[in-house]
């Protein structure tokens, strides 16, 4: 589904990603872990098409298409979803109105008819249960005055509504208490299918107790320096990142 080859990206001339290789197949869950500043969130942003990042080398194909060639909105319409680490507030625009605009633009791109109000609301009611989100929250201005947990739940709710093929969760666990973490993870797990894939970007192993990954990758200094199964995450939890850092840094100095 997603193939990343030798991906290099920089921001304002500073290289952040220095040759990422990754293959994600349908039905898989990949966790990207790593110390602060290793490039985890940059990878998520580059895949979604954030403009501040310049891709200097490498290629990314998504469902056979050159992903880097697509505008951010077209990547979304092709089925790439990014759950933001810091969801943005849009005053005066209700979540409902926002989502309806989004869904209908995605549908238009795919040659589908716009959803009428009744169908849209029926769908909303159904998906709301997944993340235990209150309808009142959805009629308020998007993310304005939402608590950290409400914002993250709203991200997963949007994901449920947009039914993406590739979901990238960028530090979705940050700022969540244990209950919210459970609810959010529960939502993500219910959305999992053999046809879609998930990339979970996280600093802590905690989230991976709930969303169990098939693969775990450690990102350090812009490269994937170690890959493994979910046991790797447990090892990291126990030993921290220093042993990996040391191994890589000593290699580099040789």
């Amino acid at each position, binding site marked *: 589904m997603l193939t990343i080859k030798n991906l290099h990206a920089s921001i304002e001339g500073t290289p952040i990603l220095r040759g990422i290789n990754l293959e994600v197949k349908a039905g898989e869950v990949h966790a990207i872990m790593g110390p602060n500043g290793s490039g985890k969130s940059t990878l998520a942003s580059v895949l*979604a*098409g*954030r*403009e*501040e990042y310049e891709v200097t080398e490498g290629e990314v194909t998504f469902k056979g298409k050159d992903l880097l060639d697509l*505008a*951010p*909105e077209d*990547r*979304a*319409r092709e089925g790439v*979803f*990014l759950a*933001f680490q810091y*969801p*943005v507030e*849009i*005053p*005066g*625009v209700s979540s409902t*109105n*926002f*989502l309806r*605009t*989004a*869904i209908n*633009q*995605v549908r238009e*791109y795919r040659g589908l008819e716009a959803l009428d109000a009744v169908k849209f609301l029926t769908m909303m009611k159904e998906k709301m249960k997944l993340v235990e989100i209150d309808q009142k929250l959805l009629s308020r*201005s998007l993310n304005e005055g939402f608590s950290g947990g409400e914002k993250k739940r709203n991200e997963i709710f*949007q994901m449920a509504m*947009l039914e993406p093929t590739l979901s990238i969760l960028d530090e979705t666990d940050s700022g969540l208490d244990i209950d919210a973490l459970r609810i959010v993870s529960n939502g993500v797990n219910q959305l999992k299918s053999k046809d879609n894939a998930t990339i979970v970007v996280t600093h802590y192993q905690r989230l991976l107790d709930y969303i169990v990954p098939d693969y775990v990758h450690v990102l350090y200094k812009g490269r994937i320096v170690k890959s493994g199964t979910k046991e790797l995450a447990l090892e990291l939890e126990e030993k921290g990142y220093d042993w990996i850092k040391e191994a890589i840094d000593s290699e580099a100095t040789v």
Partner: protein
Amino acid sequence: MSKDNQILEELTSKEYEHGWSVNFEADEAPIGLNEEIIRWISAKKEEPEWLLEWRLKAFKTWQSMTEPTWANVTYPKIDLQSLRYYSAPKQNNKPKSLDEVDPELLQIYERLGINLNEQKKLQGIAVDAVLDSVSVATTFKGTLSKLGIVFCSFSEAVKEHPELVKKYLGSVVPMTDNYYAALNSAVFSDGSFCYIPKGVRCPMELSTYFRINAANTGQFERTLIVAEDEAYVSYLEGCTAPQRDENQLHAAVVEIYAAKNAEVKYSTVQNWFPGDKNGKGGIYNFVTKRGICAGDHSKISWTQVETGSAVTWKYPSCILKGDHSIGEFYSVAVTNNYQQADTGTKMIHIGKNTKSRIVSKGISAGKSQNSYRGQVQVMKRADNARNFSQCDSLLMGDRCGAHTFPYIDINNSSAKVEHEATTSKIGEDQLFYCNQRGISTEDAVALIVNGYAKEVLNQLPMEFAVEAQKLLALTLEGSVG
């Protein structure tokens, strides 16, 4: 080029939708401004002697006045002698009813989306259509007159209801009020007149649609709305003009009189030609609008959506004379390219327990300048006056300006005046967030701007609100990449 700038470039390349003009035979005054021209206009309109005297007196005063320069706008000096002060489509016989109006004129309005055919027209809105210097048609006059409501062109009101016109003309905006109001008083050609008798709630929205068609002609219309005790009316005003390279002057005066327990809602969607993307052409919109809450418990509410004009200079105001009277001002002003707007309101608290509310939302894009200028004045006897003002500015790109000039003048210690102001930018973060959900940048801008202006748009009558939303999106289309 940054993303913001790209978006702006695209937005600004959008064409003005109503830029066309129509050729028809016109009845025109000679170019220039002098006493003769004023006599010519007055004679053309077969006006009574007192009105001619009134005009001439205004003209004399005007001659001794100088153009105000305090507004935060710059434009080359207007040569008032090179303008034409009257231009009207030639109609052979004065049409007595809508059926007799030249279909070609009706077509102009149809093209603007204003249907003057009463049968086809949606129920609920009566329209007075003003083209250049004259009113060409007014709908639903019959229906309204059964309730004692007078809704007609100003010229007609002078003929049919001279006592009302004489009583209220200049009573809210004196002819000597300011440079452009004095000029308007001298040369005004037409406009709308509306009178709601005691105890009557006007059952439909009344509206005037102003259209400038002729080149090189100034439009000077005058609107007078009188609501007697316990009366209610909601009034709408729309305006467009053809796209021309020269600037054109529009200097209108609107007066509103609200008696005891009366309520008047006045809504404007101003979409005069704003000039092209290089700042060439466009309307100079120098307008004086004022209402007086003369009676106790009366209420006047101004709502404006300002998207057009090259230069706007406009402060719809309320004089809160009656005890417990209420004044409201809701405004969205959008400027793009080289547009300049200096707009706001004045709330003058005279009566006791008077309340005013100001909500102003400025949106600047391109290289435009957008200023809010507002005054809250509480007089000595105005015990327990309350004011709440909120002035927000939204910037798009980094080449435009937003300015706020609040003036507060309190002469009574029991007054409570609150002022809140915010300035924000449409962030790349907001746009990216929308994009990431599959929303195109243009639609994202429309969504964000409409959300920002929601509180004001909610004040507009339903049909108008939808139009205004579209207009906001259109004005800013392409402003973000």
